């Protein structure tokens, strides 16, 4: 995890600086959380894709579709439309997550500029 350490003895840390450092820490945490969430959403999307292909290939009219903890016998067409719905949902979520990630990257770069500008070598904002 990135740690903001001030090792210089000359530059004073104002409340505003502290708040910038706090904000950077919070954004960095959220960034890592987002990376995990994006990974999971991508996996779900891939699984849905595989499932969708399997359903198209199957000869059965009835597919066992998981609802809750049970596998309900659902007609093939209904399963196809359900999977499509789920895929749309996951794609939207993935898009939102990617957008949030992009904006966090931009914000963090801004803060880095400000903090490195004031503290130069006294602060370390890189991943260890």
């Amino acid at each position: 995890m990135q740690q903001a350490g001030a090792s210089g003895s000359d530059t004073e840390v104002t409340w505003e600086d502290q708040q910038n450092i706090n904000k950077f820490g919070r954004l960095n945490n959220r960034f890592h959380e987002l990376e995990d969430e994006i990974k999971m959403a991508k996996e779900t999307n891939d699984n849905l894709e595989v499932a969708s292909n399997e359903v198209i290939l199957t000869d059965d009219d009835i597919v066992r579709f998981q609802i809750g903890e049970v596998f309900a016998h659902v007609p093939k067409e209904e399963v196809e439309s359900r999977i499509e719905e789920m895929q749309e949902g996951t794609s939207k979520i993935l898009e939102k997550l990617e957008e949030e990630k992009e904006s966090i990257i931009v914000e963090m770069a801004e803060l880095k500029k400000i903090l490195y500008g004031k503290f130069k070598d006294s602060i370390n904002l890189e991943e260890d």
Partner: protein
Amino acid sequence: MASSSSSEVTTVTERRGIPAAVFVDDVQSYLSQSSLDVNSALAFFQERLQQYRVVEMKLMAQQRDLQAKIPDIEKCLDVVATLQAKKGIGEALQADFEVSEGIYSRARIEDTDFVCLWLGANVMLEYSCDEATTLLQKNLENAKASLEVLVADLQFLRDQVTITQVTIPRIYNWDVHQRRARQAVATEEL
């Protein structure tokens, strides 16, 4: 460097039992105001950091629990909705369910207006589908609201940790600076 008149600036003194970290504007005035020497101050902040870590672990465990509970409630809502949708059709719902690990059995679920909900503590109650949906929705909303509050608590806590993590080296460096200055004066006088 101009030193400000107050050495402690905190906008919130604590949040739900978590004390806010002391922000030190000026190390010198903080030390004289609290009448602590450098080592005691450092020890105090280190201990605070440990306490924060303990609380962080607890909150993260609660967060994991809630994050597991929410998809469970959503699955239940899914099942109830499916049962309700099947009601008018007249066909029984066939489902394969797990009897034991790796062993599944088939069930025919006839049209029904009632479902049983597991409430925990070995209690299961029968509800109409509508009541069940309402109850599950309420539980879901409560869980999501609790999670939001928890996440805000964690953010606050992590901010306090960051503040303390910055204060400790500042006090240490100030001390090093003082020692060097005293040494320089001492060698000058020789």
